[in-house]
């Protein structure tokens, strides 16, 4: 396989407070990666990361921007929001830990499994968060 000349890049807007739209970025990304012939397992892991990230942005940050790039070897997902920030990223990665409100829990979310799920499925995950300014999460998956 010759080295690809292009980096494929797609951007998605994640609407805040819209649970119905959450999953749109994950679904579009799946279609993109499938059209490029990315192996199914890598697509599945990427889709889980993206979906959990989208849900988090909807629940905690009133939405945000998602971007996916693929250079032929690595899928990179970048999720940006201008929400309240994550006070303790270590704690957020612990299973069962959640700051979701009761209303959110009533909808079946907020079990504290989202971030750990992202961490588990991504090959690398970095969290950059500033309180009251926002959060940038970068996840990569090697194909």
């Amino acid at each position, binding site marked *: *396989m010759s080295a690809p000349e*292009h980096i494929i890049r797609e951007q998605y807007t994640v609407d805040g407070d819209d649970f119905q739209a959450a999953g749109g970025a994950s679904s579009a990304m*799946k279609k993109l990666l*499938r059209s*490029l012939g990315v192996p199914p397992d890598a697509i*599945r892991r990427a889709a*889980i990361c993206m979906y959990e990230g989208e849900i988090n942005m909807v629940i905690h940050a009133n939405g945000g921007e998602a971007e996916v790039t693929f250079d032929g070897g690595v899928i990179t997902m970048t999720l940006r929001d201008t929400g309240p920030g994550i006070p303790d990223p270590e704690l957020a990665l612990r299973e069962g830990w959640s700051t979701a409100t009761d209303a959110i829990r009533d909808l079946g979310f907020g079990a504290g499994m989202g971030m750990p799920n992202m961490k588990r499925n991504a090959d690398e995950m970095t969290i950059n968060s500033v309180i009251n300014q926002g959060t940038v999460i970068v996840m990569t998956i090697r194909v």
Partner: protein
Amino acid sequence: MTHCVTLDKEKCKGCTTCIRQCPTEAIRVRRGKATIISERCIDCGRCVLACPHHAKRAVCDPLTLMEQFRYTVALPAPSLYGQFRNLDDIGVVLGGLLEMGFDGVYEVARAAEEMSAHALVKFGIARKGVGYDGAEPVPAVRPLISTACPACVRLICMRFPRLIPHLAPEIAPVELAALAARAEAAKKTGLPPDKIGVFFITPCPAKMTAAHFPLGLSEPVLDGAFSMAELYVKLLPAMKKAAMKDNVFPSVGLAGVGWAVSSGESAVLRNMKTIAIDEIPNVIAVLEDIEDGKLPEVGFVELNACTQGCVGGCLTVENPYVSKMRIQELMKNLPDTLLSRLRYDDPGTPPTRDLPLAYEPADVLDGDMSAAMEKRFRMDALLGRLPGLDCASCGAPSCRALAEDVVRGYAQEADCVFLTRDSMGEGGYLPPPFRHSQK
């Protein structure tokens, strides 16, 4: 890949109705006629229902095929029972099939009921001698996905490779019925199995195709399939004769007949969280969710390509909602043979598929990944220049599909009437839906 959905070129007006309706974007209008992209077609029959000119047809086997066999057996789909007004005895339908010239009848509903009984024991929902025992069932693969609808199985093989291991390993009810019918007929007549013709009365093109090219089976187990709609005309008068004789009795209870409608298959799996989905766009949406791990609580997934299940097949005669009502009315008067079967018998174990189901991607832009990326790059660039109206005037269902066709080399940029118009300079007439508000 072979399909039974074909085009009557005389009747096709080259309109874009079918290409917009096709859930897998498998149709393009070329040279004024709708053409099917074979690798993408799952034989769901939606285009057959959609075509206003009746140019799309599902070609089934001719009834004359029966003449090639010494002994013939009809395998009526459970959905056939929903096609008749005021039917209160399934025996009349079975008798009608015999009057029509079949030598024997074997109800697919009977095989379906056997599949249900097997599933109940396999999942630990019921036990021999006890019936339902209230245990919480734990399937080895969660969720398990039904394989009764071949259009949905084909969709999964094409788009959801991760879900292939979730498909139930057993053969489909119609295939189980075919094996049993042939064995029964061979025993009764002493004829060699290849002299016995076993024919499915099918409600849909997907099952017609699967009769000749079964998914996951090395050999077909049916000798052919007849269209329900085609057979209907001959069956009606034959049923009148059969009603006078009143000498054929159904062999099935309510559980097997229930498979004709969506949620019939899953309804018997008590204590299990089941989900029944009908129509391909809905099926795609739920499969996406399952693939993303969004439905961890679901134990069993029933899928049907057609509206309300098999009663919505494009080869049926009656409106799906009306047939559904009739099936439910029939079920009220049928015995719960599934329960008695479990109480006294060991349900048999249906055979499993002898070939693995393979991932057959239809949407990969190129086998070489860097070539695919290059194509995707060009596709995105072109998509930015297309009007985004999805008007289908180019013969593709959407601007996106045209962009994809262009990079694959199947279409040209100039196929877009708007790009062509722009290249000729401003000022041409633009129909109202396509005018920009600021102009």
